[in-house]
C-alpha cells in the first residue's frame, strides 16, 4: 500500500514536471458528424496555417486518429503548446448500406464501414493518452444519446478534464441550453467551427481546461 502511494506520488510529480515542459495532449471526441475535424482544422489553421484532416457531410469521414503536434495557442498574452488529437466518431453501430444509400459503391461502402469500425477501436485506445478532452457535440441533435454519456462517463472515470463544445450554433435548430441541461457539471461552450463564431470564448475555455491537467 505504502509503495503504491509512493509510486503514485512519484508519477504525479514526474507528470507535473514534464507537463510544464511538454505539450498538452488535447483530444477531440464525440459522435460521428459532430464537427470534430472541422473544429480541429479551425484551431490548426488559426495557429499553424495548416489543416489536420478532410471533412465531409457523410459520417465516418475520419477513420484514423490524426494529430498535429506543437500547436501553440495564445490567449491574453499567455501561450500553451498542444498536441491536437482528432479522433473518429464513436458509434455503437455501423451499416455499410447507409453509405450505399449515400450513393457509394457497395465495395467502397463496405471498406469504409470496416475502416470506421477499426477507427472507433483506435479512438477508444487513444483515450489513455489524453491530458484533456473536448467532447464535440452537434447542437442540433439530441444530446442524451448513450454514446455521448458513455464518452463523458469514461473521461470522468479516467479523471481526464472535459470541455463540451456545442458545435453548429450557426444553424437555426441549434440548442446549446439543451446540452447544458444534459451535462450540468461541465463547461459547455457554443461554437461554430464552420464560421468561427464564439471561437475566442472556446479558446478561453481551453485554457481553463488546460489548468485542470
Amino acid at each position, binding site marked *: 500500500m505504502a509503495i503504491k502511494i509512493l509510486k503514485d506520488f512519484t508519477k504525479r510529480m514526474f507528470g507535473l514536471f514534464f507537463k510544464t515542459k511538454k505539450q498538452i495532449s488535447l483530444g477531440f471526441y464525440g459522435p460521428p458528424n459532430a464537427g470534430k475535424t472541422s473544429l480541429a482544422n479551425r484551431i490548426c489553421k488559426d495557429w499553424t496555417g495548416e489543416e489536420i484532416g478532410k471533412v465531409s457531410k457523410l459520417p465516418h469521414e475520419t477513420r484514423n486518429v490524426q494529430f498535429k503536434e506543437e500547436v501553440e495557442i495564445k490567449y491574453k498574452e499567455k501561450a500553451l503548446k498542444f498536441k491536437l488529437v482528432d479522433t473518429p466518431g*464513436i*458509434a*455503437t*453501430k*455501423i*451499416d455499410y448500406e447507409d453509405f450505399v444509400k449515400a450513393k457509394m459503391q457497395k465495395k467502397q461502402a463496405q471498406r469504409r*464501414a*470496416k475502416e470506421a*469500425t*477499426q477507427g*472507433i*477501436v483506435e479512438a*477508444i485506445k487513444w*483515450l489513455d493518452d489524453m491530458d484533456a478532452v473536448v467532447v464535440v457535440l452537434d447542437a442540433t441533435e*439530441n444530446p*442524451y*444519446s*448513450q*454514446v455521448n*454519456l*458513455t464518452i463523458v*462517463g*469514461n473521461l*470522468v*472515470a479516467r479523471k481526464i478534464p472535459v470541455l463540451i463544445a456545442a458545435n453548429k450554433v450557426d444553424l437555426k435548430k441549434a440548442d446549446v441550453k439543451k446540452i447544458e*441541461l*444534459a451535462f450540468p457539471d461541465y463547461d459547455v461552450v457554443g461554437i461554430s467551427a464552420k464560421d468561427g463564431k464564439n471561437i475566442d470564448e472556446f479558446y478561453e475555455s481551453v485554457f481553463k481546461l488546460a489548468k485542470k491537467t
Partner: protein
Amino acid sequence: MAKKESKNGLTLQFIPFSDISHLSSVERIKKLLKIVLDNKVIVLQGRLKPEEETRLIEDTMIMIGNIKGFKGVELSVVESNSDDKTLFDKMRFGLAKVIAGQQDAITIIGPASVIKEMKKDPKKLEVMMR
C-alpha cells in the same frame, strides 16, 4: 430470468444484476454480446461500469468486421433521477454503488438489426423497432 416473446419474434431477455455481478468485465461483455447475437433485446437490471461500456463498443466494432450481417448494437441506460434524492440518500446510493455496483438503473442493449433507434431524454426512453 424472464423471457417474453411477441408474435413477430421479438425476444426480450431480462437479466437481473445478480446474474452478472460475480463475472469479470470481459465475461460480462461476452455474456451480453452472446445474447445480442441471438437477436434478443437485453433488459439488464443495473448498468455497466464506464470502462465496460467502452469495452462493449470496442468488442461490437470488432464483431461487425468479423460476423456477417452483424451491424452493431443500440444501447441505452435509464437511471433514477438523483435530483429528487436527499443528500443522505445520495450518500447512501453512492456507497451502495461502490460496494455492489449501480443497480438502480436499467440498461437496454439490442442488435441494430432489430432496434432501429433509441431516443432518450431525461424523462423517457423511446425504442423504435425495425
